[in-house]
């Protein structure tokens, strides 16, 4: 069964007929593409735009005006026990950060600059006056109200004889209030969608906790950014944030490794068994094969629970073994290859045998090379199935570094369920490379599906 794409039924369509067909196809195609388009558009926006302007499709351009007008509030420090120590609660006039107790006459620190007049703006928050408790802290945090302009914020924390400088400037492409955490220690993954600024010690010393009493001042510098860079930073924000928030690279490697291992193993064991079932004679072969086939009818739910128990008992829970080993054996693959092997001519095999080949050698040098298309089809199927497998990896893995792509995406969804722009960006991160590969090899896949799908 193969589709001959070039052979069309009947001659040219009449104009009316063709127009109707085209119109229907076009409507269908639009309804197919609209969700994808929305996905891409949402991933390019920031949370504030997604929530406040639900009818807007295209992402916003950053304003061409060379100004930044931000507000800073609630500078606090976090102890290793995750207790917050409030350092500064600004009382200049301005907007207030949400969800905080408001006191009469208090506002926030304004960071407003016009870059046509000056090159940069530095505001210093002096900490030496207040008597701070003598406690180690792991990070400083403050609330920042962005205006979506996309200019840069540089953070530096000065202490007695040392400076902590930000490893990267923060691109303030977001709108509305957001918490910014400046970490003294290396903390890459922030699960709660806050902005994270990594601080580096200068001169280099042991990066760890910093004594609160040794801090002198915090310097916030606003720097201009060219328009194209601001647009780029703003539109790729969700992608960068999603990529930083979870180890998608690791998920990709896990998925690739597991899928390749399962595909290789399944094709190998299936080809061996299929040879015995099709070309060797032994008592009870066909009855046995029928029993083998019957196992295909068993629902996954029946085998998953006891197999999970088995994995737990063997201590294989949350390992690659549990992800790979139970899936190496497939009745379907055996069935498919057996049908193909039966259709191969016997003469070649006999000739090889007369020449003194053993059975293993016949299998390796005669049968396998002859059945490349069937092997490729089975491999395609197996790879696709294990690439998108969800249930089994979900149940047998727990730690972040063992997750495969679909599970990682699902975990991402659990953590960022309200940030639709991040969800869409993460979905695209998972989807697009796979999609690209499939689109390039589409013809091959379609053929494989045709070949295998109707065999049953």
């Amino acid at each position, binding site marked *: *069964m193969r*589709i001959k*794409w070039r052979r069309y*039924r*009947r001659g040219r*369509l009449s104009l009316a007929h063709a127009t109707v067909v085209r119109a229907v*196809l076009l409507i*269908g195609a639009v309804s*197919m593409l609209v969700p*994808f388009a*929305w996905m891409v558009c949402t991933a390019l926006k920031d949370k504030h735009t997604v*929530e406040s302007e*639900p009818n807007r499709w295209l992402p916003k351009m950053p304003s061409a005006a060379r100004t930044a007008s931000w507000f800073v509030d609630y500078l606090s420090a976090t102890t290793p026990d995750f207790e917050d120590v409030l350092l500064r609660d600004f009382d200049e006039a301005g907007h207030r950060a949400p969800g905080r107790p408001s006191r009469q006459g208090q506002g926030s620190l304004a960071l407003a600059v016009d870059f046509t007049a000056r090159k940069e703006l530095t505001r210093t928050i002096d900490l030496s006056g207040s008597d701070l408790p003598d406690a180690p802290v792991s990070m400083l945090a403050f609330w920042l109200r962005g205006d979506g302009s996309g200019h840069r914020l540089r953070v530096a924390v000065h202490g007695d004889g040392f400076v902590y400088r930000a490893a990267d400037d923060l691109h303030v492409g977001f709108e509305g209030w957001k918490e910014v955490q400046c970490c003294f220690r290396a903390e890459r993954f922030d699960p709660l969608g806050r902005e994270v600024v990594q601080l580096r010690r200068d001169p280099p010393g042991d990066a760890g906790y910093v004594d609160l009493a040794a801090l002198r001042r915090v310097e916030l510098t606003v720097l201009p950014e060219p328009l194209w860079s601001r647009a780029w930073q703003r539109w790729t924000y969700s992608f960068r944030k999603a990529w930083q928030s979870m180890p998608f690279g690791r998920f990709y490697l896990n998925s690739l490794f597991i899928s390749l291992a399962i595909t290789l193993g399944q094709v190998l*064991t*299936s080809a*061996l*068994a299929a040879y*015995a*079932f099709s070309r*060797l*004679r*032994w*008592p009870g*072969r066909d009855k046995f094969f029928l029993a083998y086939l019957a196992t295909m*009818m*068993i*629902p996954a*739910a*029946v*085998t*998953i*629970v*006891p197999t*999970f*128990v088995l994995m*737990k008992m063997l201590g294989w829970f949350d390992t690659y073994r549990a992800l790979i*080993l*139970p899936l*190496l*054996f497939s*009745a379907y693959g055996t069935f498919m290859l057996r049908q193909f092997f039966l259709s191969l001519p016997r003469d070649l095999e006999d000739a090889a045998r007369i020449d003194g080949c053993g*059975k293993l050698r016949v*299998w390796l040098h005669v049968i396998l090379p002859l059945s490349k298309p069937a092997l490729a089809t089975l491999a395609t199927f197996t790879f696709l199935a294990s690439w*998108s497998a*969800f*249930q089994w990896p979900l*149940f047998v893995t727990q730690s972040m570094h063992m997750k495969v792509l*679909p599970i990682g*995406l*699902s975990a991402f969804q659990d953590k960022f369920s309200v940030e*639709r722009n991040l969800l869409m960006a993460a*979905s695209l991160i998972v989807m697009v490379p*796979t999609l690209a590969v499939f*689109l390039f090899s589409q013809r091959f*896949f*379609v053929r494989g599906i*045709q070949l295998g*799908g*109707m065999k*049953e």
Partner: protein
Amino acid sequence: MRTASSKTLRRVDALTSVLFCLPNLIGVLVFVVLPVTACLGLGFCRWRGSRLELGAIDWVGLANFAKLLGFRTEASAAAVVGGFVLAGGLIGAAAWLLRRWSAWRRPVRWAGLAALLAVGWGVRRYWAGVIDPQASDPLFWQALWNSLVLMTWGVGGRIVLCLAMAMLLNQRLREIVVYRTIYFLPTISSAIALYILWQALYHPDVGVINRALLAARGGLNALIDAVGGPAGWITWQPPNWLGEVSTAKPAFILMGWWQQMGGLPMLLYLAALQGIPEQLYEAAEIDGANAWQRFRTITWPMVSPTTFFILIMGVIRGFQGGFQQAYVMTRGGPAGSTTTVDYFIYNQAFFQDQDMGYASAAAWVLFVIILALTLINWRYGQRKVHY
């Protein structure tokens, strides 16, 4: 001498065969046969807790099945088993009768049907003494119903939509490959990503679907207003798709159609359509058949093997599927209205009660149902198919 050597040869042959089969055989034994047996065994046990201590396994007999299906507690095991045998016999008899239906003369037909009804009545009466619907686990029956609804609409819609799509794509147009690729996109996209996407599309306030419905409502109201009707005449509110019991399943079904429309079933139909000989259509046209008659008498019978294949696979997969959607989009809610059987099983085993015994019993019930569905499909469906 000769017999001996051929015997030895045969023995060697058998031994090699076993060696060839061994890798796969061990795997199937350890990961299929052993679990299926263990699952049946666990079905009669109670084994709770995530630590899975062997000492915590309690033998509870038929209690799990009784809870699932709602046996009366005083019904004996023999009565339960007998009831199953009777019901199975009834289903078998019904299938056999339906198969022979057209072969019999009319009085025999009606006599057979009457006999079947009589037996059925007896089984029902007997069953009423064994089964007590009040005592059963309501969520399990709800899950069965959900699976049935989702599967029926899913398979039905798939057959109609995919055949229509295949007929559309089986036309002589230059840009057809582009359309085929577009319709194929959901099939090759990550399913989890699509479910997350559709969850956002179904959002009650900011989801695209409800925004579009609201926009349509506003447009209609403006139109009514323009022709002099009452202002704001249509007050209909778009539903909270995944948040309401009445719309959660339709939302799933719609999404499934969107996902499946240009997928593998469509490709199978396309292949089938291309295999129909041209002469049939030409002959029909000469005989003056219109488009509907050509479809009814040529296309539909000629693609019936494909329809049958899609039906069987759809029923089997549909009845045991639905976990991913439910897990990603609704966690089985609202009020259990998207809990399918496999979500119920996995929820029992891994998330909620972590009762391996109860989950195993439910899995076996699912197994039996799927077995029955497959057999019915095979027996009854093959008669309808023109190869």
